[in-house]
């Protein structure tokens, strides 16, 4: 049984990891920890969220810190794996003894971490995992602001109501990815059908990765659908757009799920990505205080004209958390929670009052990509550009 020699080495390894993890505990600063999918499938979004977090920390430390103490971030890489996200949340809470937990992405990871936050009674401000996870009775979770698929097209619906009925599209083709985000986007489709009188002619779900978009567009074209909802991510969204162009499919409007709000959309698609509608819960051209400054920072550091949404989200979740802490004047999680549920927070995405579930009032902005920029269309008060409707034909 020489093999058992290995057991000794393993024991040593375990001892090392015990010690290794102990090292990172520091006394003075306020620790804020958790995990982000820094590598793997969701690396791109996580990278911007991380930058948002770090910029927030930098800014607040310059101002003298939170409750007079500097803040320090402990960010783990969960490799886009929800199970790891759970373990790292526990590591942050029980080993690093963080004072605050930060929010994570994507949908499934946030969904899996929300119960952890609840068990350890930690305030958790994140995009949330859409409506289903906010109806599980968690009291410490907040969406500030949330990315709610269920509300994603509220702005679109409101704006469409201003279009005379005869000019509205009549028949919709709806293609939705089969995951939590897709499922919640589908919810808003029902509202769309009811309130606008647009008939859903095609309603199909697909599993990612989408093998080919040609048949989807062909079918929409044949069924004379004059509005296309492509409720997906970037990869499938790009395929759909390109197939639509190649097959010269010209609906009155194309509405894209969450693909068109990331920087890659305008950067990679160029003109072909224009005139696509989408929703958003946050935008760099909103008039709320802070956005201008963030845009300048992003321009200076990363050479982008304005901050990407996920940078804003990261920053904004931290703002919410910060105001909770400052309002409660304490790091006591229950006090922070109670303060957040009874007061208004002021963020770059707007002013929120949270209800019992931890959600603000349903709201969403309508965006359209025009000349390679994501412009705000609705509500009218925030409009940065007139909508282009109906969509011009492909050139």
């Amino acid at each position, binding site marked *: *049984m*020489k*093999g*058992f*020699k*290995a*057991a*000794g*080495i*393993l*024991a040593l*390894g*375990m001892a*090392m*990891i*015990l010690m*290794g*993890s102990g090292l*990172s505990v520091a006394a003075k600063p306020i620790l804020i920890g958790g995990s982000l999918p*820094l*590598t793997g499938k969701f690396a791109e979004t996580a990278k911007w969220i991380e930058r948002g977090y770090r910029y927030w920390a930098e800014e607040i430390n310059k101002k003298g810190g939170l409750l007079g103490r500097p803040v320090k971030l402990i960010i*783990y*890489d969960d*490799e886009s*794996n*929800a*199970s790891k996200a*759970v*373990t790292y949340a*526990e*590591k942050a*809470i*029980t*080993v690093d003894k963080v004072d605050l937990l930060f929010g994570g992405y994507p949908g*499934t990871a946030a*969904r*899996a971490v*929300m*119960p*952890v936050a*609840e*068990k*350890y009674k930690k305030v958790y401000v994140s995009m949330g995992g859409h409506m*289903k*996870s906010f109806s*599980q009775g968690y009291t410490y979770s907040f969406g500030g602001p949330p990315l709610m698929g269920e509300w994603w097209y509220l702005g679109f619906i409101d704006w469409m109501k201003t279009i005379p009925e005869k000019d509205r599209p009549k028949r919709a083709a709806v293609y939705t990815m*089969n*995951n*939590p985000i*897709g*499922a919640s986007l589908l919810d808003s489709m029902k509202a769309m059908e009811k309130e606008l009188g647009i008939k859903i002619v095609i309603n199909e*779900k697909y*599993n990612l990765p989408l093998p080919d978009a040609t048949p989807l567009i062909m079918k929409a074209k044949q069924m004379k659908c004059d509005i296309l909802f492509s409720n997906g991510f970037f990869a499938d969204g790009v395929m759909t757009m390109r197939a639509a162009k190649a097959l010269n499919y010209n609906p009155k409007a194309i509405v894209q799920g969450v693909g068109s709000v990331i920087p890659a959309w305008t950067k990679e698609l160029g003109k072909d990505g224009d005139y696509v509608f989408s929703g958003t819960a946050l935008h760099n051209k909103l008039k709320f205080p802070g956005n201008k400054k963030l845009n300048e920072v992003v321009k200076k550091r990363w050479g982008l004209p304005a901050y990407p949404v996920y940078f804003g989200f990261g920053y904004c979740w931290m703002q919410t958390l910060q105001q909770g802490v400052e309002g409660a004047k304490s790091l006591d999680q229950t006090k922070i929670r109670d303060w957040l549920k009874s007061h208004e927070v002021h963020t770059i995405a707007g002013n929120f009052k949270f209800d019992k579930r931890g959600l603000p009032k349903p709201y969403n902005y309508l965006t359209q990509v025009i000349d390679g920029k994501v412009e705000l269309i609705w509500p009218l008060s925030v409009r940065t550009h007139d909508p282009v409707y109906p969509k011009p034909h492909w050139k």
Partner: protein
Amino acid sequence: MKPFLKTLLFLCIAGALALPWLSPPVYFVSLLFIVFMYVVMAESWVLIGGFAGYLSFGHGAFLGIGAYTTALLMNHFHLSPLWVLVSALPAGAVAACIAAVIGYPALRLRGPYFALITLCFAFVMELVVKNLDFLGGPEGLWLKAMGIDVGLARGIFFEVMFVLMVVTVLTVRHIEFSRFGVGLKAIKEDEEVAQTLCVHTPRVKLSAFVLSAFFPGIAGGLYAYYLSYIHPETVFNIDISILIVLMALFGGGGTFMGPIVGAISLSLINELLSAFLKAEYARVIYGLLFVVLILYLPDGVMSFFRKGKSADT
């Protein structure tokens, strides 16, 4: 075995059993819970993949089946969360039954064809669960939280997983040196020859496959509770299937010790790297680890320990 090693092993087991009650940070309990789960998975995989040489690339699916069975049972019968410990057993049974149904035709396939069919099976399972709304569909399933302190709950599950791991390891170790195990190894060497030596190969293979699905099924039940929220992309993830295979091979696929060494060392090294290095650098070093290991020990970690014993063959 040398007395020193025996003592060390005993200390390891005693230490592991006592760990949750020494009130360490819960993270360590959780981390080891996951490590033990991987040991169970890799160890079970070795039955069919290591001994019989049938590389199953879909073994993660049995974890998912176990997780979903447990979650459905709990949610359907509104069981109190502690019942998860009991309902994990039928979950193991369900996984074993599905393994029997899949294994019966699939085990007629040899080599890469078997690997491919198990891979396809894992995909189909993930997609089917995602497509069927009564299984939670794309939304996934939530499990009720246990009404007790989270540390205590993690502790209980840690002990249960530990026992499951010990049972799995002992079972596999027993099999390795039994007639059954010899039959499996004969199949790996040469299936035709094994047949002529009166090994009833279809039955032996199927038994090994079913057994190798049973333990992951139970582990899946416990895992479902650990996560509290399960989703096809989390529990049926193909990465789990591949990771199990790698763990077993990393340690050295042919023995019961290999997967233990592989699962524990890979999990802990990965954890260490992530603790100290920036994300991408950690991954690069993790990749280098595989390269360097194979360059120096082409047959896995365990071959290092065996080298002293007998000459290279």
